């Protein structure tokens, strides 16, 4: 357990902490909010935080080549353990030498534990102290996924960041006793994961804070998890339909308790507003399938909101998807690598040819990564509150109809949107 207990203070200007397979270096802090900018060094290279991580569920980011994903600036993306376990399976991953080689991706990978998909995708999955019991999607025979199985599979995948198997409940679960059981079990399972993890020197295991919407339970979970000194910490169980106000309270409560020199990952978060507010509350890492999925439905994410490119109004619109965007599709024709894609062409092929989905995926991934890049630059220049105001101003040009959850959450960290 003391394996990563090597955190050490560095020179006074930048502070950093290292564990066997990770270095976290804090390079800037917002003087108003809790937002932080940092550099995370992982086995497959450096990434700048805050960061959005696109989700390549089945070892492929929906339609993009790894080369195209790299060109968006992405250096850390997700794979899903459950899906890779089904296809291609552990044996193939071992034979090929892990998921990086398997998918031709030389940068970092993060994998979930596989438990979430069990619970959300499979009928009749239930959780016991041993692990997640489920019926084989194939023939219905009873099966069991334990923390040890999850670690073994993630070790075969070779992800740079692996997640502990946790007992996930929807945050809105009514049974408080069950919620406490899930939280405490997640802590016990973390101990089993740590014990079963074969390669701590080259793969980082993150713990996951549980506890639903009960802030006291979240605090208790933070204490227990932090004591186990994993190289990074995730806040789990959110984005499951809880009120946004509650979501923000949980994130704020956890970040308050967490050690400063470790990366903080809020799982399953992807709407631009959620990202910006969570960064203000002190979170560093996010993932979500929404940007890439909504692309396949013909939606473009822009600084002025989400545009449904299938609408008739875009049929003869020869502007870029988003004016001023620097992605390959949108960047001006005289810039290198510009593809000169127009809204009209996306409209022409949205939901008709996959190429339109690929192009929107390129754009949306770029948007999300760039949003976090801009947030980072603003934090380092200590003008993050101004950035937050600009960002919300783009989405709500009347300067008033901001969502109340965002106003409240930001007020809690010293930004008043309504004062502008």
């Amino acid at each position: 357990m003391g394996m990563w207990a090597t955190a050490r203070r560095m020179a006074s200007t930048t502070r950093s902490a290292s564990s066997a397979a990770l270095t976290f270096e804090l390079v800037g802090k917002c003087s108003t909010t809790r937002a932080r900018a940092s550099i995370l060094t992982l086995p497959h290279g450096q990434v700048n935080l805050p960061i959005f991580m696109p989700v390549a569920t089945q070892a492929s980011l929906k339609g993009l080549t790894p080369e195209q994903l790299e060109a968006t600036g992405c250096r850390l993306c997700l794979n899903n353990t459950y899906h890779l376990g089904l296809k291609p399976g552990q044996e193939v991953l071992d034979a090929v030498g892990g998921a990086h080689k398997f998918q031709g991706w030389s940068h970092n990978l993060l994998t979930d534990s596989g438990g979430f998909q069990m619970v959300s995708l499979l009928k009749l999955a239930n959780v016991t102290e041993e692990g997640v019991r489920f019926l084989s999607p194939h023939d219905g025979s009873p099966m069991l996924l334990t923390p040890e199985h999850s670690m073994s599979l993630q070790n075969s995948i070779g992800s740079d960041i692996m997640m502990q198997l946790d007992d996930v409940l929807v945050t809105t679960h009514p049974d408080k006793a069950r919620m406490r059981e899930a939280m405490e079990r997640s802590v016990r399972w973390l101990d089993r994961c740590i014990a079963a993890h074969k390669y701590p020197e080259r793969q980082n295991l993150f713990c996951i804070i549980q506890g639903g919407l009960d802030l006291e339970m979240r605090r208790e979970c933070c204490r227990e998890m932090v004591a186990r000194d994993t190289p990074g910490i995730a806040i789990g169980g959110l984005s499951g339909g809880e009120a946004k106000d509650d979501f923000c309270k949980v994130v704020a409560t956890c970040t308050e308790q967490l050690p400063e020199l470790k990366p903080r990952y809020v799982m399953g978060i992807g709407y631009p507003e959620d990202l910006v507010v969570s960064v203000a509350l002190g979170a560093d890492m996010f993932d979500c399938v929404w940007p890439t999925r909504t692309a396949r439905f013909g939606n473009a994410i822009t600084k002025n909101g989400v545009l449904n490119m299938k609408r008739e109004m875009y049929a003869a619109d020869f502007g870029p998807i988003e004016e001023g965007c620097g992605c390959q599709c949108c960047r001006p024709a005289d810039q290198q690598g510009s593809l000169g894609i127009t809204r009209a062409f996306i409209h022409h092929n949205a939901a008709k040819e996959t190429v339109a989905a690929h192009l929107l995926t390129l754009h949306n991934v770029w948007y999300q990564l760039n949003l976090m890049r801009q947030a980072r630059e603003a934090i380092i220049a200590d003008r993050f509150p101004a950035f937050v105001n600009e960002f919300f101003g783009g989405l709500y040009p009347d300067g008033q109809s901001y969502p109340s959850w965002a106003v409240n959450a930001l007020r809690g960290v010293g930004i008043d949107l309504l004062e502008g």
Partner: protein
Amino acid sequence: MTVDIEAQEPESTAMRFEILSSALKEGTSATARIGRLAFPGRRPIDTPNFIAVTSRGTLPHVTPDNISKHLQVSGAYFSLEDFVEKSQQNLSRPPPIFSAPTSTTHPTPLHSFTGTPSHITTLLAARRLPAVPSPIGNSTKSISIFTNTGFQNLSTTEYLSAISTLQPDISIPLADLTNNTTATPTSKRALRMAERTDEWIVDWFSSPLSPSTTTFAPVLPIPYPIQWEYLSRLAEDYLPSHQLSGLAIHDPDILPDLSTHQSSLLSLPLLSLSNPSNPHQILRHISLGIDLSLPNFKTAVSPLSEGCSCYACASHHRAYVHHLLQAREMLGWTLLQVHNHAVLSQFFSGIQTTIKNGTFERERINFSRVYDPEMPAGVGERPRARGYQYMSQGGEENAGKKRNKPAWRELGPTAEGETPVEEVPETTQTPVQVPEGDGAKELQEKGLGEVVKE
């Protein structure tokens, strides 16, 4: 033996086509040849070669950056019917492609609207390849085209107006075709096809055409004696006037007749519009003199080859492509498109070399000895096909047939003893693709948990 023919330079356009050498065969003058076709501003095309077939203005599954980076394709076939659907919400709106702005990187509205890189030579025809037969049929003044929102009529005047706006490098005038791949037209119908196409070509050439667009006249898939008047008009009127720049040949088996009766036409670049079902047919067409082919079997499921230098082979391995196809990930199709286009490019470049070395005929016979003429049947699931253009792709025999098995069926017991489908809960997660095999044991072997003994 090789023959060199003087480069001919039509005055009406800046297109250049040079026949560099040809491999003469005994007993016939229809022959394989190598050449170079060049349009101003485009990458020259060494012939024999192939032109990529687009769908709705895009090479399926391949984004423009991947076309530029990873494909050697230098020409693309577009169909007007992919762009001129009537908007249901806004009936009066003209097709947007006609107002697409141009720039230095996208020099014509066709390049610009479709994001096609400027080095690609564009070819515009009225109909997709292969075209869906129209239940309405053609009339004396127009053909029936199939758009996203249904069938429409297209006259030569409308088509010419579209061409003058879109500025393709090559245009193919209207032809009266049945687009029926199973039945040959009756002799009465064939005669009408020839007469109408002949009338339409007169209309075509009597109208002013943008100087940047060349005309490749259609050669009908009917016997030479039925269309000889039309073909001799091409040779006697429009070849000398330099209005005719090439031929778009629906059935290359007419080439020996052409070389006997209208050999002057063979100085033109010859484009095959037939849909070759295997490389043997391509080789045979080339042996008859075809310069440009439009092979359409590129999405066949085939293994990736050793020693190939394409992006898909250089950066990825079979296990990954296999996985992508198994998991029905779209990237699988992208990689196969990249690879298969690379294989075609290598195939055509090999053909060019053998013609140059004078070994084409020998190698062609070798090829037919070594390779099975039947393309292996695809065993994988094809990409999810959406849109009107797939409703009856491939001609009448496929009309109304779905390419893939339906992914979803009605719940509950079904007719004819089929097993009922399990309810799949609506979810925001990527659906589970359950592998074929021995069930839970297999999952256990894959490391996804263990079977519980009860």
